[in-house]
């Protein structure tokens, strides 16, 4: 169904422009891959990410460590009066009790309880008697030596505090309270009185010890990816707490102190700016440059020129000049002419894109950069998509070439439509979602609705979900145009 002499003629007539466009497009793609791969567009993103993400993480660590400290310090301040009272009471009871025992009093326990009760204020008398009774009971059981007496008292006070806080407290808090009570009482036993600064030191020491162990595994991985190891976190926590304590002690409100200490770069900027900066950090520049800039615009432009010129030269150009008469004056059917020319146009485009694809793959292999976000499979699907898009546009140009007898009409309409699509895509790009909001002109997105090229959705392709329906529509439009062109050329009068 095709004429080989005609095919040969078409190849000879169009080989130069085909060759030039194929080489130019291939070199363009290779250059773009080299540039994105070697200049390392990723570095820019990484430096953004270094600056912003690390600043955010640091700020989070500071804020969280201070909040943890506040919680601990609240607990300390609650526990301290109770603990000191209980400790004093325990010491007094055991002192009185020991005195009665030494004086061989027949009932030293009751005597000691009675004395403690009598020394207390009337409101606390009953409570003091209860505590005295409890510690004497426990003393009589455990009988601590003079070396273990302190530990015994600490243990007793801690147990009492824990017993007093009630039932609805979780184990972690109980453990926290136990640990804090122990520390407070040990220190109190030494000094008989604790200053606010001493209490703050207990809280901060405690927070530091606890903070790293409370970070969950997932967060820890994120921290480590951004170079936040345990030492760095600990030192951040220490410095945050030191700053916080210093600020609050000098009269700064707690919230103000927190925001002063945990300030990040992003939190200093207006939200519009931070949004667009985050977008830039998220922007995949390889996808934008190779996918959209090359495959939807630059890489379509040259083949588009080829299609406009060649589709015209295959029919309308030859009818206009009259050279078609030589083919049709031989026993060559018109439908053989159209089928041959369609085959040539589609096959030449196919081979063109095959070579572009191979060039792209070679470039990716040569660049050999693991940070390059464009893979061989990406580029393969992108090229197939570009070929399908160009098939559709080739159909339109073939239709006008078959329809009109004058070259200028065929290229005027077919080429005009094609260029309009491309220009709409370029304008539409400036308003499309691949462009960061900072430089996007939303209203230009409107143009995307007027371009056939919009159906070639490189973003979806690169994200891995190929829109088969769009490709089917492009193939359908192309095939329909080829079919109408074929029928029209077979029926029409030729001015030869």
């Amino acid at each position, binding site marked *: 169904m095709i*004429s*080989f*002499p*005609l095919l*040969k*003629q078409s190849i*000879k*007539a169009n080989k130069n422009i085909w060759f030039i466009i194929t080489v130019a497009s291939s070199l363009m793609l290779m250059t773009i891959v080299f540039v994105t791969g070697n200049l390392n567009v990723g570095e820019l993103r990484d430096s953004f990410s270094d600056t912003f993400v690390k600043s955010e993480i640091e700020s989070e660590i500071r804020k969280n460590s201070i909040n943890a400290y506040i919680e601990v310090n609240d607990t300390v301040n609650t526990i301290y009066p109770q603990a000191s009272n209980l400790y004093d009471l325990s010491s007094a009871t055991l002192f009185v009790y020991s005195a009665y025992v030494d004086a061989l009093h027949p009932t030293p326990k009751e005597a000691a309880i009675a004395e403690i009760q009598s020394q207390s204020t009337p409101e606390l008398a009953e409570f003091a008697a209860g505590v005295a009774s409890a510690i004497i009971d426990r003393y009589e059981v455990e009988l601590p030596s003079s070396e273990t007496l302190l530990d015994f008292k600490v243990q007793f006070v801690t147990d009492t505090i824990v017993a007093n806080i009630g039932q609805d407290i979780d184990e972690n808090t109980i453990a926290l309270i136990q640990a804090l009570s122990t520390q407070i009482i040990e220190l109190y036993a030494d000094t008989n009185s604790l200053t606010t600064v001493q209490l703050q030191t207990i809280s901060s020491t405690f927070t530091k010890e606890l903070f790293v162990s409370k970070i969950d595994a997932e967060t820890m991985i994120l921290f480590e990816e951004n170079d936040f190891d345990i030492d760095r976190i600990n030192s951040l926590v220490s410095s945050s707490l030191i700053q916080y304590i210093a600020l609050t002690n000098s009269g700064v409100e707690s919230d103000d102190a927190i925001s002063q200490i945990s300030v990040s770069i992003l939190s200093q900027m207006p939200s519009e700016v931070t949004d667009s900066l985050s977008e830039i950090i998220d922007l995949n520049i390889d996808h934008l440059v190779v996918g959209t800039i090359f495959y939807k615009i630059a890489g379509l432009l040259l083949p588009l020129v080829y299609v406009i010129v060649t589709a015209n*030269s295959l029919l309308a150009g*030859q009818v206009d*000049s*009259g*050279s078609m*008469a*030589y*083919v*049709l*004056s*031989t*026993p*060559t*059917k*018109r439908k053989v002419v159209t089928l041959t020319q369609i085959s040539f146009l589609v096959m030449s485009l196919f081979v063109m894109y095959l070579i572009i694809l191979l060039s792209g793959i070679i470039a990716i292999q040569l660049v050999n950069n693991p940070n390059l976000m464009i893979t061989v499979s990406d580029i393969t699907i992108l090229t197939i998509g570009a070929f399908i898009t160009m098939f559709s546009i080739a159909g339109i140009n073939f239709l006008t070439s078959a329809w009109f007898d004058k070259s200028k009409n065929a290229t005027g309409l077919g080429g005009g439509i094609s260029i309009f699509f491309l220009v709409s895509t370029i304008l539409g790009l400036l308003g499309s979602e691949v462009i960061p909001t900072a430089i996007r002109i939303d209203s230009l997105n409107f143009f995307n609705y007027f371009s056939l090229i919009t159906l070639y959705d490189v973003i979806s392709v690169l994200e891995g979900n190929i829109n088969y329906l769009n490709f089917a529509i492009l193939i359908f439009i192309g095939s329909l145009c080829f079919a109408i062109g074929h029928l029209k050329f077979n029926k029409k*009068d*030729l*001015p*030869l």
Partner: protein
Amino acid sequence: MNDIEVRRVTKDYGYKRGIFDIEFVVKQGEIFGFIGTNGSGKSTTIRHMMGFSKPDHGTISIRNLDATTQATDTKKWIGYVPGEIAFPELESGEAFIESQADFWRLKNFELTNRLIEIFQIDLRANPKKMSKGMKQKTAIIAGFMNDSDILILDEPTTGLDPLMRVKFLQVLEEEKAKGKTIFISSHLFEELEHLCDRVALIRDGHIVSIANINEIKHPQEREFKIEFMNADNYQRFLEEPFHFDRIRPDQNQVFISVDRLDIHQFIVKLSTYDVKFFIEIKYNLERFFKDTFNYQERVGIEL
């Protein structure tokens, strides 16, 4: 047998342009001339014979195949030289001839080579750089190379120098001798007059008349112009029983028509007069069509 039959073919392009009710046949072995001014409809008629355009009305058949619907089948008999010379975009005339040979699946290049020799053409040139004459010769070779039985030639001598024109007309004579049917269009009367068996004149899309060249070359009556030495002889001659077409008393001239059977008698009569000169006024194709056209104008045939 008629190789080409054009029956009442009309193609109306509007504004009185087109061809209207064209009817003629070309017999096998005949050279049929088609004459008309530029824009008279010659190429349009040929376009329909080649099946490039579809007539509004009427039919054209080539050896009983419909030239429109069975165009491809008729091409196996047809060699065509188009009026507009534009070649496919190939690097040389040679490549073009080879490509055409491919289309024809031509194996025998004897005729091609002979034509190249006759026309002394260097086919290595790029078609775009060829002179008009070279292009025309290349187109003629492409049209003739398949040794087709029917040749359709649209103004084939355009651009040829006089010497080449003569050579080309000789080639046509040879082809005719081989039994080819030739349809040739031209706007030059003398070219067709010497070559053709019959000639059709087309004017404003209508066929004015079809002339049989044989009848024009050998008319029933011959026309003579005679000038006498003096008025006496002139006056005396007017008494003779001849058919006087026109007289010029002040110049002693007469124009007379003589039946070809009476020529001898006429010369004998004339020898008795003092004659300054006498010449035969040749009847030719141009005059034939002019007369036909004037007659049609006079009797008011609507064209």
